[in-house]
């Protein structure tokens, strides 16, 4: 079984005992974390282990003349050295997510060309890390530097340096890696009939995941069994195993991936990286365990980043405030290479239209290569970028029409009479409380009273978004997670899952589900460490899929295990299974919760007293269940229901701007969310707080600063301005208005990313309210703020758009002046097929 029939939320099978789902059970993870006994990747030490480091390019774009590794071999302690040329034809390039490696743009090392600063040139393994570093320094590198291209719009110009030379893309010559378009409704008609059309060019920043736990791995190849074991700090066991085995061209039975404690990923560890191949190769060549943990500057330069975008966005609004259309041309910077980058613009745009059921949507996107760090997924997956543009346009249109931004949003957010409701973009909203969230959030920030009595240099801003809960990505026709449960012979339960917990509290959350479903004490339930040798296949932990998708698989496996336990008990007690219930670690006859048989006895019966089992009973007390969401693939017009359900977020920011230094302080911040049925409020609250924090960094401080040569100037935590605790407001105005999902059996919705989506836009709108300046670029640094304030004074204007409309632009642009998609004519595409999008489908 791969898909559960939709069912309504209701009480689980266990009818007695306190239910743990819905309560703030203290996290099982915390003891090890707080006492320092949790083991992260750099804590792993194996007998005979040696250390590898990677020599990375210090220039962004260059032709490789030669890389001579011979001098490194002479360095004391050096055991082996690798560079690109010798691997050509021996390891397979990769570039897609799991299977069908269509785009072979990734290779362990640069061979003919360097495409970004930090790309791997060679690697050295030695007895100590320092010897390996010495070895790297001895490698003789001869590069012919080429012009860099940092700006994604520059990359589109016909005279731009070509980044990927060897790969012939669908769209011909040039740096366009992929194109994307949405054609829903008729934007031209919406534009014609609108009371106002607001337009603005917006840009967004490249943001780092900045997980404190570094990327890294330990590879250990056993020459006798031929099994390569890889411990890695990753978000996905099977993505790493399957791609690694394919790259090395060895059977998947010979690759075992295990994951220690992971100190967060945020999307930045959701793929296989070159260092994992390099460590594996060294271990296979030496027959010794090899550790390769990246330094912070390596993670900045060669990890994945939030894709930066340039958006030429337009929004059409009727006189009554109804949003009638949205058009956008997005130049999406996916860096020099990317396995996930193009997916970000697809899903970020599709879901980014929510929570408005906009009838006419017209989007084109050029997904381009630049000589910068690879783009990829990062908390929010394209939605914060879309919402940054769209939610500011909503405010701009409301102001032009003299309407209250709150009232305009209340008028437009999806609030159907009946569920499920299919939006024009194709999303099937199975439940939502987004309108109530919006109202509650405005009340929490005291919207009406504060706006009636404005304070100089202070302002309020609103933004709303919805976030997908798991997702069928355009290049992954699967949305699968699985759980295997085993009732051990002492009545304890082990959960096996390959979906890595990197902050999502799986050990607690899944144990709550099992404890409720099986009537077993939560202290008896354990989550096994992720291990491809023992855990069933699942996609991994990203896309806010843990609670809903993995949680559902866990729930189904629990129900199956309960059925088996009841069957044994019914046989022993000579009653029907329907007369039995579970709770307090036992199975008992309904109404007699103080009697019954302990799970321990039943489990031991299955193992050691098989004569007492029912006839034809399969003795194993292991059950497996999978859950694959009932989601759709993207249609040719860009529409589709890509997510199983949608969580809602309504945010209100209160900011203060220091007109003398330009510092923007978030004085207060209200967040009201619809996360459906919350399994553990403590965990979900923490997810929202963390999500806000990353959104705040995107809004106010974080960015990859490159010089014109593609050299990153802030590749350290000293210079990269990640948000820290002192800058964060008291996040006390947080609440949930649960609208349980009707598709997910337990009613859960994704929690991990909904805190991020609205933040930059809410802060941007508040900054406008405080200063009269509409920021069109992220982040809104003190430098940009103060420069804009002075410019506004100099020109004596009430409002200013900065920096995009500097210095001469004053009114809305004519869309004719805006660039068109360059790589091919937008409407030239012949799609081979056309989905019939019946609006009733899925209803």
């Amino acid at each position, binding site marked *: 079984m791969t898909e559960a029939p939709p069912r309504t939320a209701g009480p689980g099978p266990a009818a007695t005992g306190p239910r743990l789902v819905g309560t703030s059970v203290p996290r099982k993870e915390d003891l090890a974390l707080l006492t320092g006994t949790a083991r992260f990747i750099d804590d792993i030490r194996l007998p005979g282990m040696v250390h590898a480091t990677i020599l990375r390019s210090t220039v962004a774009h260059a032709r490789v003349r030669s890389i001579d590794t011979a001098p490194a071999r002479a360095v004391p302690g050096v055991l082996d050295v690798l560079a690109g040329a010798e691997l050509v034809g021996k390891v397979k390039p990769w570039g897609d997510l799991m299977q069908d490696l269509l785009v072979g743009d990734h290779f362990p090392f640069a061979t003919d060309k360097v495409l970004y600063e930090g790309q791997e040139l060679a690697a050295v393994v030695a007895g100590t890390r*320092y010897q390996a570093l010495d070895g790297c320094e001895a490698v003789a590198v001869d590069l012919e530097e080429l012009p860099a291209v940092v700006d994604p719009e520059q990359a589109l110009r016909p005279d731009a340096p070509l980044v990927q030379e060897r790969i012939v893309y669908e769209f011909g010559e040039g740096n366009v890696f992929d194109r994307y378009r949405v054609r829903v409704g008729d934007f031209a008609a919406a534009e014609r009939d609108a009371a106002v059309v607001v337009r603005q060019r917006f840009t967004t920043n490249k943001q780092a995941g900045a997980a404190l736990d570094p990327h890294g791995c330990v590879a250990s190849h056993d020459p006798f069994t031929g099994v390569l074991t890889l411990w890695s700090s990753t978000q996905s066991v099977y993505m790493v195993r399957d791609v690694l085995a394919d790259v090395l061209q060895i059977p998947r039975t010979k690759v075992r991936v295990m994951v220690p404690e992971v100190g967060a990923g945020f999307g930045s560890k959701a793929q296989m990286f070159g260092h994992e191949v390099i460590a594996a190769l060294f271990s296979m060549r030496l027959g010794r365990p090899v550790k390769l943990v990246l330094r912070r500057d390596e993670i900045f330069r060669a990890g994945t980043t939030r894709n930066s975008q340039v958006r030429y966005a337009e929004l059409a609004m009727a006189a009554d405030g109804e949003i009638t259309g949205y058009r956008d041309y997005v130049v999406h910077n996916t860096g020099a290479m990317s396995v996930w980058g193009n997916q970000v613009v697809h899903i970020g745009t599709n879901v980014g239209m929510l929570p408005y059921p906009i009838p006419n949507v017209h989007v084109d996107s050029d997904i381009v290569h630049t000589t910068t760090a690879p783009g990829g997924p990062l908390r929010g997956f394209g939605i914060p970028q879309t919402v940054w543009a769209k939610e500011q346009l909503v405010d701009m249109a409301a102001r032009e029409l003299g309407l209250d931004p709150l009232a305009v949003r209340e008028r437009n957010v999806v609030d159907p009479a009946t569920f499920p409701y299919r939006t024009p973009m194709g999303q099937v909203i199975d439940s939502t409380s987004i309108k109530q969230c919006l109202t509650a959030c405005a009340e929490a920030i005291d919207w009406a009273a504060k706006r009636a009595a404005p304070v100089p240099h202070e302002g309020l801003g609103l933004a709303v978004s919805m976030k997908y809960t798991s997702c069928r990505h355009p290049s992954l026709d699967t949305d699968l997670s699985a759980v295997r449960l085993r009732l051990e012979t002492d009545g304890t339960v082990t959960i096996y899952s390959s979906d890595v917990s990197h902050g999502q509290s799986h050990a607690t959350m899944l144990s709550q589900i099992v404890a409720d479903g099986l009537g077993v004490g939560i202290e008896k339930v354990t989550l096994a460490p992720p291990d491809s040798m023992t855990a069933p296949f699942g996609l991994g932990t990203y896309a806010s899929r843990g609670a809903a998708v993995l949680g559902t698989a866990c729930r189904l496996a629990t129900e199956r295990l309960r059925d088996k336990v009841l069957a044994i008990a019914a046989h022993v007690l000579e009653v029907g299974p329907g007369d039995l219930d579970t709770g307090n670690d036992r199975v008992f006859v309904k109404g007699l919760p103080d009697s019954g048989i302990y799970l321990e006895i039943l489990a031991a019966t299955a193992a050691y007293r098989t004569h007492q089992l029912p006839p034809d009973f399969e003795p194993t007390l292991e059950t497996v269940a999978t859950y694959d969401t009932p989601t759709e693939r993207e249609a040719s017009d860009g529409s589709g229901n890509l997510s199983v359900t949608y969580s809602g977020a309504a945010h209100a920011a209160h900011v203060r701007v220091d007109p003398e*230094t330009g510092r923007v302080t978030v004085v207060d911040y209200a967040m009201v969310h619809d996360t459906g049925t919350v399994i553990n409020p403590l965990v979900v609250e923490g997810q929202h707080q963390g999500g806000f924090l990353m959104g705040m960094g995107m809004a106010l401080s974080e960015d990859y600063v490159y010089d014109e040569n593609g050299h990153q100037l802030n590749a350290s935590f*000293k210079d990269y301005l990640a948000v820290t605790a*002192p800058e964060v407001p008291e996040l006390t105005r947080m609440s949930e208005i649960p609208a349980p999902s009707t598709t997910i059996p337990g009613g859960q919705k994704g929690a991990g990313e909904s805190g991020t989506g609205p933040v930059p836009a809410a802060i941007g709108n508040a900054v406008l309210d405080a200063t009269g300046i509409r920021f069109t670029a992220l982040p809104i640094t003190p*430098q940009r703020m*103060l*420069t804009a304030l002075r410019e506004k004074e100099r020109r004596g204007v009430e409002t200013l758009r900065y920096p995009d409309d500097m210095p001469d632009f004053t009114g809305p642009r004519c869309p004719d002046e805006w660039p068109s998609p360059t790589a091919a004519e937008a409407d030239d595409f012949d799609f081979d097929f056309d989905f019939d999008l019946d609006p009733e489908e899925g209803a």
Partner: protein
Amino acid sequence: MRAFTWLEPGTTTDAVALLREHAPGARLIAGGQSLLLAMKDRTAGPTHLVSLAGVEGLAGVRTADDGSLVVGAATTYTALTRLDATALGGWHGVLGAVAGDLADRPVRNRGTVGGSLCTGDPRYDVPVLAAGVDATLRITGAGGDREVPATGFAQGPGLVALRPDEVLTALVLPPRPRWDAVAFEKFRHRVFDAAIVSVTCALRAGADGVAEARLTVGGATPAPTPVPGAAARLVGPLPDPDAVAAAADAAAEEVLPGGATAGEAVRYRHELVRTLVRRAVTRAAADLRRS
């Protein structure tokens, strides 16, 4: 990091001898809060580290007979924050305040006044305060002892007027009567970040207001920069807000000429100089008015 030899002299004379013996690869290390980071990055690779931790008399603060404050180069920031008003009286207390409001706690626990001065980082606070109050630096070396003004000691990022075989032994703040009010202001992104711009304003009272003023700007230029032209505008009656603003504008123009129309980064620093000079002067003048 590369391999190095750790040396622990007991006196400055021994330290100087070791620096000479192991030149050119030897480096002094005090708290190591800048050097160790550079060594980890392999942007610095000394063959020998001469530790000042065991050098007698290099850490600690005392008031000399003439009333000047002698701050041993190996005195940590944290040690300065623990001194009370008898040890750091009057405007000398600004040093304790500055030491308590930079970097983060681990850095303050290990980092030293001498390290701050000798690293030559234009964004560090202590050099801007030292130059701002017209302090002097005591240096010992093979050629004997010398004293130099703190102003001019830093010569650019990473560059200070210290020879490879010399040791900075003390920062000497002038006696308290030298100034009647000192204010230090800075702006940084996060609480533990180095300042983007910092300003020291020192005022000496006269019969009818300000007899002498000294303004020093850090961060905006490669080394702490005095702005005597702007400071001269403050001499006379206690400045009113307009006079303060005029001095601030003049200071910005003196440090970064044409900055108001330069690129965004320079323009921003130009603005910050205005803001911080205004704040520092306003605060110092208020102190003066009270005293």
